[in-house]
Structure formats: C-alpha cells, structure tokens
C-alpha cells in the first residue's frame, strides 16, 4: 500500500511540476511529503514558485496564483487517474485574461480525452466550449434550462444533436 501510494505520489509530483510551468508560463512547483519516513500518514506540502519570484509559502500567493496552483494540482491528479468526467464550478473566477487563456488552452488539451462540465461567468470560457446551457429563473425561484447553443466549430455535432 505504501509502495503504491509513493508511486502515485511521485507521478502526481512530476505532472504537477510540468503543468505548473505551463500554467504560469515558467516557474516551478512541487508537492512533497512533510514526513518522508511516514508516507502513509504524513501530511502533504504544496510549493509553487511563479516565474522570476522566490518561493514563499502558498498562502502569500495571490488569489489568481492560488487558483492556477490548484488547477495544476487537479489536472495532475487527473492525468495520473482520469475520472470519467470532471465538473468545475467557477474555477476560473479569480483569473485575469492572461491566466484565463492559459487555463483554457490546457483545458482543451485535457478535453480531448475526458469530458468536462464547467460553470462560468467568463465569456472567453464560454467561447471555448462545445455546448452552452443557459440556466434561468423566469419564474422566481424556479430554475429552467433555457437554451443550448452549439459553437460554430462543431457544425457536425450540432447536426447530430438536431437529427
């Protein structure tokens, strides 16, 4: 059990480092065991160093930098063991334009092999999706799903859906 955990842990760490460098366009990141001798019980430390900056504890990273770090971790776990679908509720909320673009670029790559359902308020994110569901409350307090819009790039898909 310990062997399997450590093996998984090292894979996640390897992917985490690669994904962080991609999301931050540089820099580095790693996850480590607080107590290396007690792999089955030890807590887990997360370190991220944005490009050009020096490592400080994760709590002094900015709101947007923390979101990008968490995204790196989620995608690293996802790479080690993909789940059938991934549901992300407003994960892009604190991101500025540049970070949003890098996140969406990575999301599209992962979506080649996995299904994603994203809740968002950002127009750029909506543009990256294949299907758009509009939830509304025309009648106060009662939810309706009002529209399904398929993106221009997926004319074949929309014919399939319509047919």
């Amino acid at each position, binding site marked *: 059990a310990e062997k399997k955990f450590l093996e998984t842990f090292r894979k996640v760490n390897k992917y985490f480092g690669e994904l962080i460098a991609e999301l931050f366009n540089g820099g580095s990141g790693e996850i480590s065991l607080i107590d290396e001798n007690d792999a089955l019980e030890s807590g887990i430390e997360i370190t991220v160093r944005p490009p050009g900056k020096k490592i400080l504890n994760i709590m002094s990273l900015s709101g947007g930098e*923390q979101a990008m770090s968490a995204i790196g971790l989620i995608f690293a776990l996802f790479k080690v063991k993909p789940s059938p679908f991934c549901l992300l509720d407003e994960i892009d909320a604190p991101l500025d334009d540049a970070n949003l673009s890098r996140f969406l670029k990575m999301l*599209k790559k992962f979506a080649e092999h996995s299904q994603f*359902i994203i809740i968002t308020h950002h127009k750029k994110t909506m543009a*990256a999706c294949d299907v*758009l569901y509009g939830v509304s409350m025309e009648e106060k307090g*009662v939810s309706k799903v009002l529209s399904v819009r398929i993106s221009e790039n997926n004319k074949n898909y929309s014919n399939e*859906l319509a047919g």
Partner: protein
Amino acid sequence: MFLKNIELSGFKSFADKVTLEFSERISAIIGPNGSGKSNIVDAIKWVLGEQSVKSLRGKSMEEVIFNGTTTRKPLSRASVSMTLVNEKGLLPVAFKEVTVSRQLYRSGESKYLINNAECRLKDVIELFMDTGLSKGAYSIISQGQISSILTANPYDRRLIFEEAA
C-alpha cells in the same frame, strides 16, 4: 465512460422536470446569480451518493427537496437520474448504458435505483468506487472549493491523493 444526461425533478430550485444532455467534450453551464447552476452540481454529487449535507450546502437532507416560492407550494419529493455511457466497461456492470437514480421523500424515505432496479445506497457507492467519482475525489470541484484545496491542512489534503492512488 462519459455522462450522457441528467434529469432533475423537485431537486432544489428545479421544481419542474429538467433534462440536460452533455457534450462529450466541454459543456458550459451559464446564467445569472442564484439561477440554479451550482444546484446542478449538487444534484450530480447527490445522485452519486453524497451523504454530507454540508457538502450539499444544507442543514438537513430534506433541504434538497423543492421547498416552494411565494407563488408555488413545496413539493414532497426530489428526484435525480443520471445516465452514463459505459464504454470500456469502466463500471462493473454488463450494460452499455447505466442509469442511476435517487429519490428522497419528505417522509424521509429514500429510493436508489440502478437501471430501474431498486438497490441500496451502498450499491450506488460501490458502483462508482475507484472511478475517481467517489467521495473526496478531485473530479467535482464545487464553487469556492479551490481555496480550501490549498488552505486545507496538510493531512486533509491526503484524501484527494489517496483517491488517485
């Protein structure tokens, strides 16, 4: 395996039956504040067997049943059904499509079904064990949960790693 569709009826703000068909790649759910988007996330967690009322943003499980508006009466039952396409046989059942349903009545009575056959909560949880969709996993990230992933104490973080192992 992928999520084909989900049907909500009487679940939180979804008083009337609503069905969502999902794209195999990326689907976005959009809408104004308070319109019901995160309630859809709660519905998906719930039908997968979520037992923590806190994780469903409530104080009791009964709170997932539509409780009325100033012009509509409360309903007595919440129902959510989810259909998954079981390609690659990731789910330990012989079917190509699997429909999981969960219902809760105000009386407190609960019903669980897999492909229309009544079963126990335990069976639903076991169905999804080891798929990355079970409790504590990283495949469903709720609103605001991003910051807790990072601020969680180092021992709580283990949970998502153990799910991946």
